[in-house]
């Protein structure tokens, strides 16, 4: 009873609320870091140095008017943010946060589930999250939203492939699909040193899948005035926003797990702390990239994927296989 019901439920609630909190404060971190990178302050008013800004934003979004445009396909319009947030939150289930800890004489694993197909689970459901964007754009009855959705689906179709191939080389050297096994395999040397090419490919295609700035085709502000979520307001918009940031946190924890050794680190800090330090470092990297690079043209984005990342990832798999066969 305790083993199968109570502990998982407590873990579920704790991990869910922690990640929701982190996702909310990632918005704060993004605004603050982006501000300082552009020599501004970022939010400063609500609370000490704007620390309560995410809460103020949430309350503001709750009390806004919830509009459904007349042209919209109403069922799909309501369904799209729900798909987006569900597919984002479900990814949290398989991320290993740290080594097992002992509380009240019980060993508790710091993940909700450790399926033997953990990494495939993440690849599959992160693609499903894109349905939210696509259907949201399509159902708005707005040409900008439509274009945003169209571009979103094209991005997912393209960048999913190189991302999966980058993961395949990690699977090859680990010999398992389980994320926990992958962390255990990096006790000595992190994968980022063993597989630098896969790391680069994964990082670039991951940022592209997150629709973040150098590749933010579906919501290009200057071309599509926010793209797929242009007609959304109130909590529906907030759900899209939250889903985007949960995806970002999940991506950061995935990079940490696959390439930066998960919870491994010098022993003076517990594993969970190392994990979150690395996660925030990766999020910082994402924001840094966003602050630096302008948006690529749409055809160049496609060219980058099909003519550069995909062949590089394939060659990397080939090279990995050869090295593994020789050793």
């Amino acid at each position, binding site marked *: 009873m305790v083993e199968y019901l109570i502990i998982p439920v407590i873990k579920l609630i704790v991990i869910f609320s922690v990640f929701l909190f982190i996702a909310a404060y990632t918005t704060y971190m993004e605004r603050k870091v982006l501000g300082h990178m552009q020599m501004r302050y970022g939010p400063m008013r609500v609370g000490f140095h704007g620390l309560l800004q995410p809460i103020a934003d949430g309350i503001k979004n709750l009390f806004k008017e919830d509009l459904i445009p007349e042209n919209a*396909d109403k069922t799909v319009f309501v369904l799209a943010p729900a798909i987006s947030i569900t597919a984002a939150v479900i990814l949290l289930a398989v991320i290993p946060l740290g080594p097992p800890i002992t509380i009240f004489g019980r060993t508790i694993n710091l993940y909700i589930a450790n399926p*033997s197909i953990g990494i495939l689970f993440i690849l599959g459901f992160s693609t*499903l999250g894109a349905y939210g964007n*696509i259907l949201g754009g*399509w159902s708005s009855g707005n040409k900008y939203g439509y274009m945003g*959705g*169209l571009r979103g*689906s094209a991005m997912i179709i393209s960048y999913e492939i190189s991302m999966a191939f980058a993961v395949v080389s990690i699977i090859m050297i680990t010999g398992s699909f389980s994320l926990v096994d992958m962390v255990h395999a990096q006790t000595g040397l992190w994968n980022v040193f063993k597989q630098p090419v896969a790391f680069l490919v994964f990082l670039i295609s991951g940022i592209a899948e997150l629709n973040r700035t150098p590749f933010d085709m579906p919501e290009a502000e200057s071309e599509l005035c926010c793209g797929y979520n242009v007609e959304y307001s109130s909590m529906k918009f907030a759900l899209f926003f939250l889903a985007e940031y949960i995806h970002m946190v999940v991506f950061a924890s995935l990079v940490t797990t696959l390439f930066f050794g998960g919870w491994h680190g010098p022993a003076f800090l517990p594993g969970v702390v190392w994990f979150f330090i690395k996660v925030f470092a990766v999020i910082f990297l994402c924001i840094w990239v966003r602050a630096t690079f302008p948006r690529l043209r749409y055809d160049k984005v496609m060219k980058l994927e099909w003519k550069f990342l995909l062949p590089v990832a394939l060659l990397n798999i080939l090279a990995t296989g050869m090295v593994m066969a020789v050793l």
Partner: protein
Amino acid sequence: MEQALILICGIIAIATAIMVILSRNTVHSAMWMVGNCFIIAVLFLLLRFQFIAILQIIVYAGAIMMFIIYAIMMLNLRLSDDSADIVKNLLNGRYLLLALLFIGIVILGVGFGPMALKGTMTDQAMIKFGEVELLANYIFSEGLLPFELVSVLLTAAIVGAIYLAKKN
């Protein structure tokens, strides 16, 4: 318990499949189809095939349906009026009878199939070897010839598609 779940999932799968045909809106059809892929993944899970289930989600619900939705949006397909006739015909009775028969057969198949059919991939074997290993061993030993033939066929299809596209 498991049998009941399989039956329920089978019925939902059939219902979504019918909705794919009956939806007047092409994007709605595609969405029902995504749901259908999903339910089939759940059926695989109930048969303890995690790997195949997640492949079903990645390949069918993720990639292929994404392609189909992309194509639908690219071609900007509107509402079709023909589907109204299908509904009318169904209510006429002829197709309804056929559909009910089909549903009955599929429910029987889905519900009682797993009991009758048990190959080398039993629960015990899966726990012992791991399903991915089992599957890989099967594909790369006994099923090697069909596997290679299928890959040749797919390559031929890709080359043919490129040829057709180049002509334009």
